[in-house]
């Protein structure tokens, strides 16, 4: 990923971890592909997880994320590629010899065993001494705070407690890597938010590398040290939550991680032309040439709305717009705006088409903006009012027609 000069806009400082994890990798997947019959479900998947790191595989259902997890666990064989755990190629090893811990979506606790027996199972089948098992089980029970439930059966526990038992059961045999299969899928929203914080804290404490799979972007951003976005069997982008949210590499990533406005634009010498607007941007000359058709992506919160033409420094005028709809969504206000190509800005021969795409990919001419509560209450806006739309930040993506060798988005600072 090419970084443009940090200019003008003060942003939150970027976390140090880049796309590559600090080596050595605790677990690696190298060039995995998988077919079921003639249907390819994964193609050339590669990623690393560092010691103590949490990687989230984020994708819609059918993106192949569960298959990746099952391949790492040894419950499924890859068509090509390798699985490497702590430097050892385990691709040919059966599940039981890999030493990975899987936390199934249903938890898969053994119904006829008590909490204690469930947790001690891994050590029992490894023929550890009774005393030793008891000691480990006690430690784990206190780690997951289930001491008083030790004699209970799984059916007597709540979903969250069952999940903690499932985690303790895998930690007992010191797994190489923990794999979580949609661990919060079966829980209600409140419990889910609470549990994922708890589990993240727990994982940092035990320092075992973990791979989560989820379709919930909020969960991915909150849980992951890094997030890999999957789309129909391939990785679209791997990066820190900050990177993938603020600098999506592809349109898919941009729209999958929350609302994104996408506009057509053309690359010019020192600026990007978006319809009638000229937004100064420093672009990497190797990826983009003058005249290239590109797309710019910006989040609803990157839009600033102004009554007059006076813009704060760093805010760049896009267009004027008509407010079509205002929705109150709790913490913020969401506005739908229809962009207008203002007459006086028409300067040269570019088409002034402002085609935008909403996440559901229907072309419209509207964009979505959000305003935090303080701003919404100090500057009240009405439906039908005309405002000036400015951008505080955006990302430039190549379109398919752009002559690109690396299929990566380039961040533009304005």
């Amino acid at each position, binding site marked *: 990923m090419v970084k443009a000069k940090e200019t003008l806009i003060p942003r939150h400082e970027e976390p140090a971890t880049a796309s590559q994890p600090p080596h050595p990798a605790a677990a690696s997947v190298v060039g995995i592909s998988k077919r079921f019959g003639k249907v390819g479900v994964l193609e050339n998947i590669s990623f690393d997880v560092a010691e103590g790191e949490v990687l989230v595989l984020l994708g819609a259902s059918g993106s192949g994320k569960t298959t990746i997890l099952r391949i790492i*666990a*040894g*419950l499924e064989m890859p068509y090509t590629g390798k699985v490497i755990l702590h430097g050892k190629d385990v691709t040919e090893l*059966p*599940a*039981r*010899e*890999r*030493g*990975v*811990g*899987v936390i*199934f*979506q*249903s938890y*898969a606790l*053994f*119904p*006829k*065993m008590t909490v204690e027996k469930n947790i001690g*199972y*891994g050590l029992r*089948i*490894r023929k550890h001494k009774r005393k030793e098992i008891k000691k480990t089980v006690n430690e784990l029970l206190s780690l997951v705070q289930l001491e008083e439930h030790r004699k209970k*059966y799984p*059916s007597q526990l709540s979903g969250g407690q069952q999940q903690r038992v499932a985690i303790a*059961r*895998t930690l007992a*045999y010191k797994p190489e890597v923990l794999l979580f299969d949609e661990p919060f899928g079966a829980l209600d929203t409140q419990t889910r938010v609470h549990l994922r914080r708890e589990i993240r804290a727990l994982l940092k404490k035990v320092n075992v590398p973990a791979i989560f799979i989820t379709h919930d972007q909020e969960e991915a951003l909150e849980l992951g040290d890094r997030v890999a976005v999957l789309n129909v069997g391939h990785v679209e982008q791997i990066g820190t939550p900050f990177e993938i949210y603020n600098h999506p590499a592809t349109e898919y990533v941009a729209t999958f991680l929350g609302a994104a406005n996408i506009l057509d634009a053309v690359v010019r010498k020192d600026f990007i032309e978006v319809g009638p607007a000229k937004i100064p941007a420093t672009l990497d000359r190797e990826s983009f040439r003058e005249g290239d058709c590109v797309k710019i992506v910006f989040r609803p919160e990157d839009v600033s709305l102004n009554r007059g033409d006076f813009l704060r420094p760093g805010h760049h005028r896009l267009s004027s717009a008509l407010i079509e709809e205002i929705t109150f969504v709790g913490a913020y206000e969401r506005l739908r705006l229809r962009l207008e190509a203002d007459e006086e800005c028409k300067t040269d021969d570019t088409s002034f088409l402002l085609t935008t795409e909403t996440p559901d990919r229907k072309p419209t001419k509207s964009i979505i903006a959000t305003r935090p509560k303080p701003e919404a209450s100090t500057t009240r806006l009405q439906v039908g009012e005309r405002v000036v739309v400015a951008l505080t930040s955006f990302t430039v993506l190549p379109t398919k027609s752009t002559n690109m060798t690396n299929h990566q988005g380039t961040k533009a600072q304005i």
Partner: protein
Amino acid sequence: MSSIAPAMRHVRGFDVVRPLSIGMLIFMMLPLVFLPLASIFIFGTSNGLDKFWSALMQPEAVFALKLSMATSFWATVFNVIFGLFAAYVLSRYNFWGRNALIVTISLPTAIPTAVAGFALLLLWGPYGTLGRLLSPHGVQVMFTAGAIILANIFVTFPLAFGVIKPVFDTMSRSLEEASATIGATRWQTFWHVTLPSLRGAIVSGALLTFARAVGEFGSTILVSGNLAGRTQTAPLYIFAKFNEGQIEAANAIAIVLALFSFLIFSVLFFARDWLDVD
């Protein structure tokens, strides 16, 4: 009808249909089930308990009961193990002919027991397909306790399988997968994870099989030879004594068998919670 029914349903808050339907159910069962059963007990004890007891203690009667229990026991052991194995294979693997196998396993319930006995004779009898090869070596399968076990196995073949397979089918694969990722071998997984979940099904399958085997008559009479004190099971004893006109002797065993099945089905019914415990 429709104008009367709503009026009948509630008479001053009292649901008439309830006692009526319960009464009707019992009335219908009376001549069909209750009275035949009751008459065994009434007849058997009408001459006093000591008569009943001495009829029961006849050496041939005791032998017949013991033989029935023993042959049924071994048939049950075999069929539970087989049923478990068959259920495992048929619910875990999908292969060509799988449904044909399921149907074949279930077949013995639909075949008349006399036909089952006849079929066994044709195979194992002294002139049967296999028996012909064995008899020169002095191996005689038919007309022994072994033959009774074979007949019991045949007629109770699908019972344990039929109870165990649905449990296998609904059992979550993730339990076994979890066990594998934790590090268990297939055998450890089966022993520690799969089998405990099947406990209820195995016990009820075994009880059903045993109850059915103890009462088996049609096939046993053909393959056992019906030799008193040697290959005569309890149902055969009842039939033989009845034919000889010794109604008391037949009745004593009949009471024991009736009580026995009552006991087994009570266990099946009332221990349901324990059997299905999660």
